């Protein structure tokens, strides 16, 4: 959505005209129940930028304006920038000084009341503002494509624009998925996953007690166990929310992974990019066994570069683990630098594109469609110094005609041949990725997680409130808690609940 928004702003006048031509009968967002929530998102890219833009849309926009900027919307001039102190409504702490704009509906991008904050681009400021917004009642982080969807509802988009919506949501969901994967791979992921498993068990036991107990073998003890599990979970999630700011260090920046077969020169590439020996390089295949990470600044854009173990079948258990981690990193990466030894190319030059495509197919994450993965890939053919000039020329001719391949750079880490072209290609990719605030922005994911976790805690409180009054309503609390947590860890269906029931109890009636 963010790419889309910036795109549409650039298209300015024509876009507004289209909006006006939109079907007025659809313009009834105020009564539309599905838009009851107010959403927010970081709308600017997150590279090194002086100014970040945070957008808010929905009925509580007026509340946002008064709570964070101390302004009443009725007295604010619409669509006019104003310099304000931006305050955290919980602590009254000053977060930043920035420009605030008020767009009352229907004359806004989404057709709803909207607010924009133009704040300083530092991660601490952005994260502070996002967290402050998330703490307001009825305000939550936007899901992928949600701003655009609301604009669509309000009749602000025409059909041709809507057609792009599916692709847009796909792209954004992919970005979120990669990001979630990154987090879920760490301790945080294990923590959330563990909670989810415990909650599934709690729900299964409550449901079993409701659907079966009376004349079966499910005793009251089951519920007492659920009581203590729910209390324990509630405490743990609350504690986690309290020290959320000091939580797991989240890796910011565009995630670039160097991957390829052993001894293709991955670590040499890392060292060249860092201009210092970060990784040990040697002609022995399998030198790098773990993931080597380094933060880089590529012409102002933050990049987290990871070098990985070379991919090969091996009996060495340490190296095997390294290979597994390498595959995991590729799955989570925003951009993969696929490194290949030029001497491994087939001698017949016509066969090179086919060979390269086959190589990428084994390297890039399976399952997902290859086309999408190829868009997030840069192919590096290393050791060009080992080829003759004639060979290099021929390969380059063939490659320039191969359309299905991602950008390819023929270079030598040893002599520096082709390095400039490679840097240009890399910069181009990183720039595109940085324009998308979803890639590598930990604060946004964090804000989303917080919102879901807060709902989870509230829902667990409902369980206790109704526990002795009405078990159906108490169970509803656990259902709701699991749905909220499921937004982070993955959806849980009724069949899974039934599976746990039948695993844990002998139901005979």
């Amino acid at each position, binding site marked *: 959505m963010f790419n889309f928004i910036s795109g549409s702003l650039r298209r300015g006048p024509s876009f507004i005209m289209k909006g006006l031509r939109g079907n007025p009968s659809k313009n009834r967002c105020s009564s539309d129940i599905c838009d009851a929530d107010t959403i927010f998102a970081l709308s600017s890219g997150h590279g090194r930028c002086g100014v970040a833009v945070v957008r808010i849309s929905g009925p509580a926009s007026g509340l946002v304006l008064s709570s964070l900027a101390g302004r009443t919307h009725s007295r604010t001039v619409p669509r006019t920038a104003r310099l304000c102190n931006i305050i955290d409504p919980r602590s009254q702490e000053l977060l930043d000084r920035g420009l605030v704009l008020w767009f009352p509906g229907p004359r806004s991008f989404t057709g709803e009341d909207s607010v924009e904050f133009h704040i300083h681009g530092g991660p601490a400021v952005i994260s502070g503002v996002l967290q402050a917004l998330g703490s307001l009642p009825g305000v939550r982080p936007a899901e992928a494509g949600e701003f655009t969807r609301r604009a669509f509802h309000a009749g602000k988009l025409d059909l041709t624009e809507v057609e792009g919506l599916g692709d847009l949501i796909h792209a954004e969901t992919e970005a979120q998925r990669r990001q979630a994967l990154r987090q879920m791979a760490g301790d945080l992921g294990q923590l959330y996953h563990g909670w989810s498993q415990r909650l599934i068990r709690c729900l299964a036991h409550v449901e079993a007690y409701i659907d079966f107990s009376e004349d079966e073998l499910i005793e009251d003890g089951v519920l007492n166990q659920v009581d203590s599990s729910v209390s324990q979970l509630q405490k743990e999630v609350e504690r986690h929310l309290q020290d959320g700011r000091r939580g797991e260090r989240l890796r910011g920046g565009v995630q670039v992974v160097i991957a390829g077969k052993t001894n293709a020169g991955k670590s040499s590439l890392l060292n060249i990019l860092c201009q210092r020996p970060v990784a040990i390089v040697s002609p022995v295949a399998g030198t790098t066994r773990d993931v080597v990470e380094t933060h880089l600044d590529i012409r102002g854009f933050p990049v987290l570069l990871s070098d990985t173990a070379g991919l090969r079948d091996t009996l060495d258990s340490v190296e095997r683990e390294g290979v597994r981690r390498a595959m995991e990193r590729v799955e989570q990466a925003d951009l993969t630098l696929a490194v290949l030894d030029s001497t491994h190319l087939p001698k017949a030059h016509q066969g090179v594109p086919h060979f390269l495509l086959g190589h990428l197919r084994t390297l890039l994450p399976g399952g997902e469609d290859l086309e999408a993965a190829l868009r997030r890939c840069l192919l590096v053919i290393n050791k060009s110094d080992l080829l003759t000039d004639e060979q290099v020329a021929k390969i380059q001719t063939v490659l320039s005609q191969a359309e299905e391949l991602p950008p390819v750079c023929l270079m030598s880490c040893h002599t520096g041949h082709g390095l400039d072209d490679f840097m240009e290609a890399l910069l181009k990719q990183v720039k595109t990725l940085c324009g998308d605030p979803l890639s590598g922005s930990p604060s946004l994911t964090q804000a989303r997680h917080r919102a879901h976790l807060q709902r989870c805690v509230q829902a667990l409180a409902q369980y206790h409130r109704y526990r002795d009054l009405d*078990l159906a309503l108490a169970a509803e609390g656990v259902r709701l808690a699991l749905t909220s947590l499921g937004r982070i860890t993955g959806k849980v269906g009724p069949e899974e609940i039934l599976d746990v029931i039948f695993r844990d109890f002998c*139901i005979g009636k």
Partner: protein
Amino acid sequence: MAVVVSLLQHRLLQEWEFHTDCLMLLRKLFWRPNHPQFPICRTVCDFPLKKYDVIVVGGGHAGTEAAAAAARVGAKTLLVTQKIQTIGALSCNPSLGGVGKGQLVREVDSLDGLCGRAGDWAGVHFSILNRSKGPAVWGPRAQLDRELYRQFIQTELHAMPRLTVLEGSVEELLVSEPNPDQPGQHRVTGIRIVDGGQTISSSSMVLTTGTFLSGSLFMGQTTSPGGRIGDPPSCVGLSHSLREKLGLRTGRLRTGTPPRIIKATVQLSLAQINAPDKQPTPFSYLNKHTRCKPEEQLPCYLTHTTPGVERIVMESLHLNTHIQQDTKGPRYCPSIESRVLRFPGRSHQVWLEPEGLTSDLLYPQGLSMTLPPDLQLRLLREIPALQRAEIQIPGYGVQYDFVCPTQLSPSLQVKRVQGLFLAGQINGTTGYEEAAAQGLWAGVNAGRTALSLPALSLSRTQSYIGVLIDDLVGRGVTEPYRMFTSRAEFRTALRPDNADLRLSPRGFEEIGCVSECRYEEAVRVRDALRDALTAMKSISMSSTRWREKLGDVNVSESKSTMLSALELLQYNGVTFEMLASAFPECLSKHLEFSQRLKIEAIYRPHCERQVREMERIREEESLSLPLDIDYFSLPVSLSREVREVLDHVRPHTLGAATRLRGMTPAAIVQLLNYVRKTGQDRHGKRGKHIEMAALEKEGGI
């Protein structure tokens, strides 16, 4: 004749104090409790009509409800059954209702189905399960007298206008070219009967073959064709027609039933007695009382298995063909063999249930088994109360074919065969209530289709019947499907107390299967409840004043908080009677509904919060995807995997599509756009919430 009728009427009115339902009164005239044989026993020869609107095949819970529902919506209906005597027979357990299942019975009753009133007539032990767990999950349940149940169903069908019953076996389904204006590859035109090979034609047909579709019975190491012991085996022809002629995908499931024990040989003093509710609660909204008087109810008995039971099961596994096969059986109603195998070293419950007022048999719930008969007896005698027990009919297992229900539309019509509807175990479900619910709905739609009215579907936001059908046609089954309250997302709104308000008005106004009397009663209740709620909302006082007015009420709010009477009624310990005595002028006229009002007050705030989610699901359900869509050539960007899933299941609505595995939010938006563009969506406002569905879906990342 007139004298007989009035005498009968007089006798019946004494013991059967039904609510003033004109239809009921009419049916009472036809009630002949001691009539040994079903009166419309006809053979094909003296059978005048050869053309019906609807033919229903099968006379079990699904078939009887289907035939009655089709006749109610106005279709000329023929019920074909192998044995008229067994119409309405309870093949397995002598009970109706329970948690989740009781809700289904109430809903079937709200649509004027038979099973609720039959339960009230035949019940000999009534209890509401889950009494302590919140009214949304109460489970009305009754032990039944098999004979009374069967008689009631048969009498009801006899009195039903437009319904004829024929004893016979179906040899073949007759099909022809489809109607080109509608999707589908075939169209049903009628049936061919086994003896004489006569054909009877119809516009639509409901198949409710239960366990008889290629059914085989298992006991020990012997196997014989059939669907129920003592009945003729079902025709192989029908199974063949479905698979070969119509190309339907089928699967195989199994179930079982326990031995029936002679009551006189059981030492009931060694079992724990289980008493019914002191005041029986009827299933039907039309009944104020059950036929059985409170004090005449029969008890059930509880006993437990011993290690000896486990030993016999383990020693005789090699003699037990049924248990060795890997056909899927129900996990929640397992045979004693599977219970012992899955949870060894435990004592399992065995309920000894009465089979009726005059029956000399007991039904041992929980002891379904397929051992050889001599071992069954040895096993039983390992249980203290059954040490001297004698078996009248041994237990046995059944394996049968079912049609994968994803091939059906939400109207329960087979997607590729115009006019062919399926209901009950043939769709992979288990249980009387599940069968009755599907039967009713298939009957309604078969009738409507025959009368050229549009087929209808029920939303999962409005009824358990909707949940049941949506789960079946949208997700299919891997084991016999049983209803649980946990399957319903909106459990707190789909309560057993309010099924009449959810379904009866629509049943009359739109569906056409509900009598005017029932409709008027439902409207009266609805209006009264609405008035009472409005009145309670208008009474508002501070919590201090409430305390003064009602005495010691435990209200946690601070003293000055204003509370309406409706809000106060949510509190534990506050009853509508208390409020009515405080404000007699505006509330006492609603005392008839005090329990319903209390329940409404508890759940109302919660249900209001769910309205948005319900609305979204209803929108999705209302957006239909064309059945003949070619997903592989659809000019939108969908991944191969998504196309394959869509092509395999062919979801009927966008709502069903969102619940499929592997669907992505992007794919849903693409589908929505496609449907919009091709003009499938004629209502401008639809689809508004679909994007929200996409949103929900991506929550799972």
